[in-house]
């Protein structure tokens, strides 16, 4: 036998190969096609899995060591935040509504990502890709769990968070993130990776985490900052998986390119639409603002995306089809989304409000092309209505886009005065879309999207009432029946921020604190 010392200094590369790729083998008692049944049907051709490179080469021992350290730090902050009643130190109770949206619409996606990467991890016959996907799976589970823990303290003191997984499966606007992720999960493993690792994580995730977490820091929420940045440190690995995976697929076979291009077109647009709620969060829900959505888009999408797609042009990949329309939307989508939540706040477990005067000034300064012209008069009107005791709510359910499931609130590219309508006939029905790109997604795979669970239609089909509720009764109140189905505490979780329990409680703590300080 050779001596120990001779084998000590193996290169990271060789060592990692022994630790991952060499563990798997070509099965023979069961055919490979049966052991890895999902590897072919999407049309992606892989000839040599050994070409897969994992740049970080983390083995489980190092993974446990570093992740354990991250967790120790994170939970120390979460504990300290609760012990010090950290919720009292935030800028304003309105801020918490950003967290509500986060826990309702983002946290469940982390969970879905965990399950999706477990599925992908099991079904790649290349052990390198499989291990990378598995690590991401368990990281995503981490994100779900740390978010639930970090927000647990807020949930004890504010409304609109307490039933978030139940809401995710039911509430109208949460079908936007849910359908996005279920679209990815119901695709094959290669599409899933392109959708989540590349299009979402690599191209768009910085827009979700970095400005939002900086926003949390500005607004005195150190607990959220810590979980956000801590999660984001895993994201750096995930993003790398995203780009490695795209390069790998493209290098394996020239015929993969058109498939990948179509997925990039589709998933860039799906992801961009999903980020509409982040845009709104940034511009309207942070009482102290760091940067506007438009600035964040320019910094993290336009600059970075241009570099990326220039790089990918070497493989014949073009920038996503919806790229220009997405860039055009940066002046509008946050305002349009806020208006939508303001319209339908009776059915949403969070609060909305009209920005105060200096916030209006900020918006006007950040959006010189659009705010004063289209959006300020609307908000001024809403304020004056509210002051006269007629807070405006839209009482009729909205028309939804069949793909992104967002109410049809987006305007024509280049004309913010007109809603963008697109439609198509398929079999015996009409289908409607918010944009050319959502329409195109439908037209390529209609068999999938005719199944969409559109919340508005489901309400009208009578599927969003509790058992035993009879819509044909004279005194039937559809809104309250739907809120019962949502398990939303009417009058507490929903409606305007003004007069909400959140506002009253926060002001009370603040008063008590000031009183104590005075003593």
């Amino acid at each position, binding site marked *: 036998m050779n001596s120990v010392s001779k084998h000590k200094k193996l290169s*990271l590369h060789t060592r990692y190969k022994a630790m991952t790729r060499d563990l798997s083998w070509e099965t023979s008692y069961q055919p490979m096609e049966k052991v890895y049944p999902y590897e072919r049907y999407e049309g992606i051709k892989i000839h040599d899995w050994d070409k897969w490179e994992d740049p970080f080469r983390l083995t489980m021992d190092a993974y446990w060591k570093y992740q354990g350290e991250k967790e120790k730090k994170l939970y120390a902050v979460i504990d300290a935040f609760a012990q010090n009643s950290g919720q009292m130190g935030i800028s304003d109770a309105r801020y918490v509504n950003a967290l509500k949206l986060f826990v309702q619409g983002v946290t469940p996606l982390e969970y879905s990502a965990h399950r999706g990467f477990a599925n992908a991890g099991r079904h790649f016959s290349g052990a390198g890709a499989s291990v990378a996907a598995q690590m991401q799976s368990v990281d995503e589970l981490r994100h779900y769990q740390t978010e639930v823990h970090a927000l647990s303290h807020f949930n004890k003191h504010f409304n609109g968070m307490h039933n978030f997984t139940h809401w995710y499966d039911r509430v109208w606007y949460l079908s936007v993130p849910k359908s996005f992720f279920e679209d990815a999960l119901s695709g094959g493993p290669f599409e899933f990776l392109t959708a989540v690792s590349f299009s979402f994580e690599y191209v768009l995730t910085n827009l979700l985490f970095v400005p939002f977490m900086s926003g949390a820091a500005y607004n005195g929420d150190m607990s959220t900052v810590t979980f956000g940045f801590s999660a984001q*440190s895993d994201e750096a690995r995930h993003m790398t998986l995203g780009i490695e995976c795209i390069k790998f697929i493209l290098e394996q076979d020239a015929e993969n390119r058109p498939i990948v291009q179509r997925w990039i077109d589709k998933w860039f647009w799906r992801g961009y639409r999903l980020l509409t709620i982040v845009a709104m969060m940034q511009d309207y829900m942070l009482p102290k603002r760091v940067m506007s959505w438009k600035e964040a888009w320019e910094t993290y999408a336009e600059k970075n995306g*241009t570099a990326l797609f*220039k790089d990918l042009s070497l493989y014949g990949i073009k920038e996503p089809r919806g790229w220009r329309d997405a860039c055009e939307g940066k002046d509008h989508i946050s305002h349009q989304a806020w208006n939508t939540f303001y319209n339908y706040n009776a059915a949403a477990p969070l609060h909305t409000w009209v920005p105060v005067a200096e916030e209006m000034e900020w918006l006007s300064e950040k959006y010189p092309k659009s705010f004063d012209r289209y959006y300020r008069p609307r908000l001024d009107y809403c304020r004056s209505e509210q002051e006269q005791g007629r807070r405006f709510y839209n009482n009729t359910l909205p028309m939804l886009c069949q793909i992104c499931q967002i109410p049809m609130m987006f305007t024509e590219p280049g004309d913010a005065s007109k809603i963008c309508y697109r439609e198509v006939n398929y079999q015996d029905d009409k289908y409607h879309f918010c944009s050319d790109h959502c329409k195109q997604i439908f037209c390529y795979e209609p068999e999938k999207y005719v199944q969409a669970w559109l919340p508005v239609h489901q309400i009208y089909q009578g599927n969003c009432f509790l058992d035993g509720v009879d819509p044909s009764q004279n005194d039937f109140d559809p809104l309250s029946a739907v809120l019962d189905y949502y398990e939303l505490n009417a009058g507490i979780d929903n409606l305007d921020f003004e007069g909400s329990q959140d506002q009253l409680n926060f002001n009370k703590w603040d008063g008590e604190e000031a009183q104590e300080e005075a003593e």
Partner: protein
Amino acid sequence: MSNVFIAFQANEESRPIVDAVIRDNPNAEVVYSPGLVKIDAPNSLIINRETIEEETGRDFDLQEIHINLVTLSGHVEEDEDQLKLSWDH
């Protein structure tokens, strides 16, 4: 030419790493925002283990950067001694 970037949580542990990056990448530009240090550099950026070790005065395993890493952009190449971000192929 496109920029690459890397960002760390702004804390005591990241300081020597950031200092090392600045020493090794004269073209790098450092931007501080709440809780975050972002370093941009034209085309490529390197992080050397040895420079960090000089900054900290102790042994450093490059994989330790994962603890405080927030995000990055560009292709990654890593071995025991160096992590390189670039848009080169």
